[in-house]
């Protein structure tokens, strides 16, 4: 090193401050990139990373977005219609100017893929790749089959019904899920090489679990819930009692309802099936349809675990259509005139914590009242039909040990509604993916999948000052008077609307490449680079100069930059 000599008048050469490493001043904290989960992703039962595929849309690449989407969920055209979208409930944008219309954009992407024939991003499995048996071709089974193929396995589906689809076909009315949409998306999935579909193959009748276990590397059980749960009311029940699920199937098969359905109807339950049957009966001419539910309608003070478990949009439409709802109540007794029901006694209840801390339903004595009715429809849920599962079922459902659906029987996995605590198409799809991952690890070697324990980036972790106000795109709906039994009630988004909606995504927890850190660093300690940034962002920190002020983290809109304690 040459000796510094005093220049005339002590002038200094440009940019020589780089010799002075101000990173030495950083004493307590330094910035890091922390890729946290977006709340939508954390809330999605199907395991979609909505933030990731919205990023592709923001880049103007719908096909890439769809490919990112189907990395988790192969049926977006379907879930984009039937999902209760907890992602939107969780969306941080709700605190600004309304949650993103994730659900609608998903549907648009799904429809776009079908219309344009975008190929699923999967390779054909080797012919000698291990084979997996999947019982049930409902959403869970289809998802499991798809993910098996995606991961390099061959999948054989065994379906008792003459068509694939499970409850998508049997329990969701065309007004919510048009049949051509259903057929198109299922058809594309089932056409994937590596998937074989065996129809009219009922477990216990046509195949056995033991037989499948012998013939296949692994068995994934996705039978769904076909049996109505027993209805516990005191006293007699009418002879012609129809449970909601069967009533719905009959109506979709034959297009007719019992005569009594023209009068005053009470539906007892709180799920999507109850909601669907309420609306169909109302549209079919019922004088008055009242839903009795133990849960509560959405409201500012409604606890999450108390909220009625239906698609919010469906509830909204039901109320538009004149369905009445009595919340926090249950049917305790039927009042009969002969074999005909003329009234129901209902009683108020709430979920209250018990001695073990778990909540249970408590009926309040003295709140009983009687409603006159012409028909009562129990719709309190379904359970697994036990045929063929003797010894594997634990009561009405399967209760696997982990998220991947592993049952005690080696190589057997259970997914979807049959798990007893699922209840949505998206959850079944998510289960299918997880089970396929575990199966793939088992059959192809490799590490067993582990849970993604990254934190969730809530709205408090964002800097929302940087997002311009943009109103949520509203979709068109059929007016109440025009709603029938076939035409889809909810409209879709245009491409422009979908792209505009994508612009609303806050990119919670991920790098937006917005340049804020680069722009806001007083010390030029943020270097903009795509090549050198190995974490998917566009920036690296130059810790030689970072003084640890924390401005970048504070001004990062998405919470992608976090200050962590300086080590060493």
């Amino acid at each position, binding site marked *: 090193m040459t000796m510094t000599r*005093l220049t*005339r*008048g002590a*002038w200094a*050469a*440009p940019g020589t401050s780089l010799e002075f490493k101000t990173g030495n001043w950083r004493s307590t904290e330094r910035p890091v990139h922390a890729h946290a989960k977006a709340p939508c992703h954390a809330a999605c039962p199907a395991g979609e990373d909505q933030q990731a595929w919205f990023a592709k849309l923001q880049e103007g690449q719908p096909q890439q977005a769809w490919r990112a989407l189907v990395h988790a969920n192969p049926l977006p055209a379907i879930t984009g219609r039937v999902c209760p979208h907890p992602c939107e409930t969780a969306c941080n944008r709700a605190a600004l100017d309304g949650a993103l219309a994730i659900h609608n954009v998903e549907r648009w992407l799904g429809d776009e893929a079908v219309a344009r024939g975008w190929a699923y991003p999967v390779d054909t499995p080797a012919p000698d790749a291990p084979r997996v048996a999947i019982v049930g071709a409902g959403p869970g089974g289809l998802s499991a089959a798809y993910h098996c193929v995606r991961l390099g396995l061959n999948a054989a589906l065994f379906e008792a019904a003459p068509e694939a689809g499970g409850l998508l076909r049997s329990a969701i009315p065309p007004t919510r899920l048009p049949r051509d949409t259903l057929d198109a998306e299922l058809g594309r999935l089932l056409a994937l090489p590596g998937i074989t579909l065996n129809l009219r193959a009922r477990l216990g009748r046509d195949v056995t679990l033991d037989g499948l276990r012998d013939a296949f590397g692994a068995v994934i059980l996705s039978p769904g819930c076909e049996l109505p749960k027993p209805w516990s009311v005191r006293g007699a029940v009418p002879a012609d009692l129809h449970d909601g699920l069967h009533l719905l199937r009959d109506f979709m098969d034959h297009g007719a309802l019992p005569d009594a359905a023209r009068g005053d109807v009470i539906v007892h339950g709180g799920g999507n099936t109850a909601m669907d049957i309420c609306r169909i009966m109302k549209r079919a001419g019922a004088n008055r349809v009242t839903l009795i539910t133990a849960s509560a309608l959405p409201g500012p003070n409604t606890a999450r675990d108390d909220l009625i478990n239906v698609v919010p949009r469906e509830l909204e439409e039901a109320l538009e259509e004149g369905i009445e709802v009595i919340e926090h109540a249950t049917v305790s007794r039927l009042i009969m005139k002969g074999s005909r029901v003329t009234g129901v006694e209902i009683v108020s209840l709430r979920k209250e914590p018990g001695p073990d801390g778990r909540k249970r339903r408590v009926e309040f004595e003295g709140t009983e009242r009687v409603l006159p009715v012409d028909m009562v429809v129990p719709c309190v849920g379904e359970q697994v039909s036990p045929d063929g599962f003797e010894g594997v079922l634990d009561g009405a459902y399967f209760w696997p040990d982990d998220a991947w659906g592993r049952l005690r029987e080696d190589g057997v996995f259970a997914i979807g509604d049959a798990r007893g605590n699922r209840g949505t198409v998206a959850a079944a799809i998510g289960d299918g993916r997880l089970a396929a991952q575990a199966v793939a690890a088992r059959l192809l070697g490799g590490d067993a999948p582990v849970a993604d324990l990254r934190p969730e980036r809530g709205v408090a972790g964002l800097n929302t000052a940087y997002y311009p106000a943009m109103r949520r795109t509203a979709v068109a709906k059929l007016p109440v008077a025009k709603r029938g039994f076939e035409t889809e009630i909810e409209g879709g988004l245009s491409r422009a609307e979908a792209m505009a909606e994508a612009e609303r995504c806050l990119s919670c927890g991920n790098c937006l490449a917005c340049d804020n850190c680069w722009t806001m660093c007083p010390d030029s300690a943020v270097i903009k680079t795509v090549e050198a940034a190995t974490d998917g962002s566009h920036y690296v920190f130059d810790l030689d100069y970072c003084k640890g002020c924390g401005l970048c983290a504070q001004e990062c809109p998405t919470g992608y930059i976090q200050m962590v304690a300086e080590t060493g």
Partner: protein
Amino acid sequence: MREALEGSLAIARAVAMAKPDVVAAYPITPQTHIVENLSKLVAEGDLHTEFVSVESEFSAASVVLGAAATGARAYTATASQGVLLMSEVLFNIAGLRIPLVMTVANRAVGAPLSIWNDQSDAMAVRDAGWIHLHCASNQEAVDTTIQAFRIAEATELPVMVCMDGFVLTHTMEVIDMPGQAQVDAFLPPFAFSRALDSADPRTVGTLVDPGWFAEMRHSHHAAMGRALGVIEKVDADFAKLTGRASGGLLTVTGDPDARVGILAMGSVVGTLEAGLADFGTEAGTARLIKLRAFRPFPARALREAVAGLDTLIVIDRAISPGLGGIVGSEVSAVLQSMTAAPRVLNYALGLGGRDIPESVYPALIAAAANPLAPRFAVFDADLDKLMPEDR
């Protein structure tokens, strides 16, 4: 070419011949005529320069500093209070080693308010780090102004050309004005190696910590030492070109064998010369030392110039209250190292425009002959005008 010119006009024309890129000035008597004349030259198209009419002397100095740092040949002029208002910038200009030229039309500094000539202003900034050259006549002022640009640019030190306000600036006399061709031959275009330039960016005016400040001052002092030789050489070069020298560091005239010497700066030298000529025979002769370079201070040349004197009278045109004369004190200090240093009498004269008559010469000679003469006095003060306690 010989012309009868007012001093201010002559200086303006000399400055114009140096072709400055930037001139900035604020009006203050008696400097005002210089910049008025420069403005007129600009207005008539005879001088192509950026003439910046600033809102204060402070800005005048700052503008020429900024301009010179950017590679412009820059000039300003001021006087009196203006020098003091500039003073902060003057230290800055010198410390940054920026070459530029400033005329100071020397004048008293208030209070009390005096618009008249003495040299209090230049003395007040003698430690700013500038070269100070004092002129005894308008001819010297013109020639020194042209020389000053070359000295400044060769040494990268600013040069203050001091000329007595009114006594020179407002006096018309016969001046041999150099021709433009002569000036062009003498003064090459300014090429400042450290000029601010976006193609070669430098940072000027850094913060210098205690580890370097002493070296900064040392280098400045060393540059001043080197400037002594530059001043002499430039004057010699100028003399070669024009036949006129302006007095190098200092000039000795009068009677070389005299035992009494009188040292002075500025226009009073001429009056002393007249006094010697008219009264020398009867009052006694003297060796006259015209000090031109006050900074850098020519200690060695001064010791040679006073060799053999019994008494040296040093004329000050300003005082440092509580000490006495300023030039006198400095002369005394540098003569300390002589084996046979003359007795130094230090007299302030002509403060605040007091007219210095020719008769001052015999009075000074008489003082030199008086062994009881005070070492310092305000020589022409009428003590009867004072309150008793101030006499």
